[in-house]
């Protein structure tokens, strides 16, 4: 398969889709909407992996795409959905920073990663360069989401989005072995399970999932 202009453009389009989903995650005010957006991001990630498999002629990336599709786009969002329903969690997103400012910070982070990645990888293939810049932006946006949201569920979603960024970076670089992706996927699953268990335990003890209340319990805020 020859790398044509079209294959570049498609790869960038799908990568940009993942990035845009990252921004959407920051913008959502409802918990279910966050979960749906996350599912969309995972879907876009699966598409990106599949497209990379196609243009790089690397069949193992189809497995990556499959993992992303099944675990991240279906199982994780469904499981979180179920948890939120089951625990009766308050369905609005509590932000620590106003959404507008979060978006501005996100834009600044994207600018930073482009500034950073493009000069560093001057010698790499053009495809890798821009995909890496986008992947890094997704990682930073995931981190940003983790620190600007109070609710534990949204923090988990932020963490998963961060993982999505890592996988995006992994599939864009040529020759990344499948082992890495599988292990990342499984670690995410394990983290998901752990978070689920923790939610139940936390909920049982403190009757809330708002981290602010947990801090009060720990004695940090009187």
């Amino acid at each position, binding site marked *: 398969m020859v790398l044509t202009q079209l294959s570049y453009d498609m790869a960038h389009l799908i990568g940009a889709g993942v990035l845009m989903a990252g921004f959407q995650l920051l913008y959502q005010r409802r918990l279910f909407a966050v979960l749906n957006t996350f599912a969309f991001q995972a879907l876009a990630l699966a598409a990106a992996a599949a497209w990379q498999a196609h243009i790089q002629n690397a069949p193992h990336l189809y497995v990556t795409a499959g993992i992303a599709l099944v675990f991240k786009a279906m199982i994780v969002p469904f499981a979180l959905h179920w948890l939120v329903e089951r625990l009766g969690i308050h369905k609005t997103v509590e932000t*620590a920073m106003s959404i507008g400012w979060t978006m501005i910070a996100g834009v600044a*982070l994207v600018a*930073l*990663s482009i*500034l*950073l990645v493009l*000069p*560093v990888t001057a010698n790499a293939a053009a495809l890798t360069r821009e995909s890496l810049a986008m992947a890094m932006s997704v990682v*930073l946006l995931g*981190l*940003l989401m*983790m*620190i600007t949201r*109070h609710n534990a569920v949204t*923090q988990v979603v932020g963490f998963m989005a961060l993982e999505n960024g890592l996988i995006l970076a992994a599939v864009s670089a040529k020759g990344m072995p499948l082992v890495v992706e599988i292990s990342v996927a499984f670690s995410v699953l394990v983290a998901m399970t752990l978070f689920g268990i923790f939610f139940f335990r936390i909920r049982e003890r403190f009757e809330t999932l708002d*981290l*602010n209340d947990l*801090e009060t319990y720990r004695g*940090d805020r009187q």
Partner: protein
Amino acid sequence: MLIAAPMSSLLALAVLGVLAGGEMWRHRLIYVCCAIASLALLVGGARHLGQSPGTGPAFILPIGLPWMEAHFRLDNLSALFMVVVNIATCAASVFGIGYCSHLPEPRRVTPFFPLFLFGMNAVLIADDAFMFLVSWEFMSLSSWLLVLADHRTAENRDAALVYLIMATFGTFCLLTCFGLLAGPEGAYSFAAMRDAKLEPVAGFLVVALALMGAGSKAGLVPLHAWLPLAHPAAPSHVSALMSGVMTKVALYGLIRILFDLHGHVPWGWGAAIMVIGGITAVLGVLYAILQDDLKKLLAYSTVENIGVVVIGLGLAIAFKDGGEKTLAALALVAGLYHIVNHSIFKTLLFLSAGAVITATGERDLGRLGGLLKRMPWTGAATLVGAAAISALPPLNGFVSEWLIFQSLFKGPSLPHWAMKFGVPVVGAMLALAAALAATCFVRAYGIAFLGRPRSPEAAQAHAIPGTMRWTMAVLAALCVVLGAVPVTLTEALSAVVQPLTGINIAVSADLGWPWLSPVSSTRGSYSGTVLVLTGAALFVISIVLVHGFGTTRTRRADAWDCGHRENIPETQYTGQSFAQPLRRVFGSSLFGARETVDMPEPGDLGPARLVVRLIDPVWIIFYQSVIRVVGFLADRVNRMQFLTVRRYLLMMFATLVFMLLVVAVRQTQ
């Protein structure tokens, strides 16, 4: 061969020391082996002392970090210090044979003693920064373990803690210093550092860091605070090594960096080092005069002597930068001469303090007295040591201080006005320190060995083992010999300083062998040899006269009782009362000394007491402010321990973004 075998056997001895258990003969055997190893190292060092520069044996061992090799080399400077170190370690090991059975817990001392010897010798032969620092830490930590040997008293534990903190600080400074010397390529071998060109700022920092790093180990004011705490806390034969030799290893590090690796230290630093030396000398001896604890007194006197040596080093730097190579070599020879001397008489004095402790169990001057009668050998050897450290001719201490004075007098020949005016001031400080040192040792010797016993323990002082006595006798003889043949020693030393100053001076140029005339024969000359011979001749003549022609009738009379009819030892001079005039002159302003008389209530039969309170200004100015700053910062940082999960994430995120920003900004440049 003479180096490697004893070094490795010292390591093996440390293992055997752990296995020695409670059997005293095994501990003695280990000390015997230590003495043999030191003797081998002494011979090994002495054999390479006269070699021409740059020909010393060098070897590379594949130990240490995987991508590094360990470089070792024995050049003239290392060889000199190796001789100096191993004379003292040999003496201390022999002393230890008899002394170890008097220690409360010999099993806490024996394993670490060979390690300490190993560490000091390894510093001297290291030829790269990595090995130097590793050996330096080895030396620090093994001596720290020895300071902790008697860990049951809280005072010793505190001393060990202060020592550990200061040792860490010193090594940190040296680490940074070598980092600057190695430059961005990380050329860590000394050979590469010698060739490297230093930027002015880096050069400045290297000198400052070397002064703080090596100076804290050597005991330069104000970094001396740990020294009088830690040195007396160790067992006496270890104190002798810490005070007599480990400080010299620190000075070796200073000389190695300032004269060899750095190469071009500006004269301003020389002047600063000289002034630091002067202050150290005066403060050290003033502290020493005020001490009642014999070992503490000796430790403070070490601070003074380090100051004297450092005056010589600073002067040598100033002369070297001013192009006066001959005078630079002279000042450096004088400094090295004092290093040799001090290592011998300070070892002797600490060992004699150990002998006094063994015999009486006391080290408080107020409870000693009259020991000369019960311990004539120790008394005589200590008298020689005390006279030598007080710089009395014809002993060795006089020669080195005289040489330092001779080079100080030439200081005004430098073109800088600061030196022209500064040198006489430092000269006055040195003269003051020398005079006060004599007072200090008149007091120490007079109170401890003369007069009448002030406690039953001193009156019942029992005999000490022969090995201890002989060690002190040999060291005392060395004090006399080194004073009697000064020219032989200065010739050896000028070969050592030749690669450092670029010139081989003949200190006895004008008048020939037995006469020292460093500047010119008209400005001053001295011959210890002639003085000793004259003194000996006069001694013999007076003995012949007195015994040949004087009366042989024995007369008995009462000792003069100073007008007191009561025959009680408390009426004698005490350490406190002897020091009182000096305490009033210097102490009230410098140490904030306050004397209060504590009168008993009417009807109370208790005695009135004179209470003296001293404040250590260095401790208050430097250390307490550091403690305050650290405490303040710790309080602030402590809050970080109780942040929320989200804040921790935020901090990580901020750090990440900041670092990415740094990378991004650096790329665009």
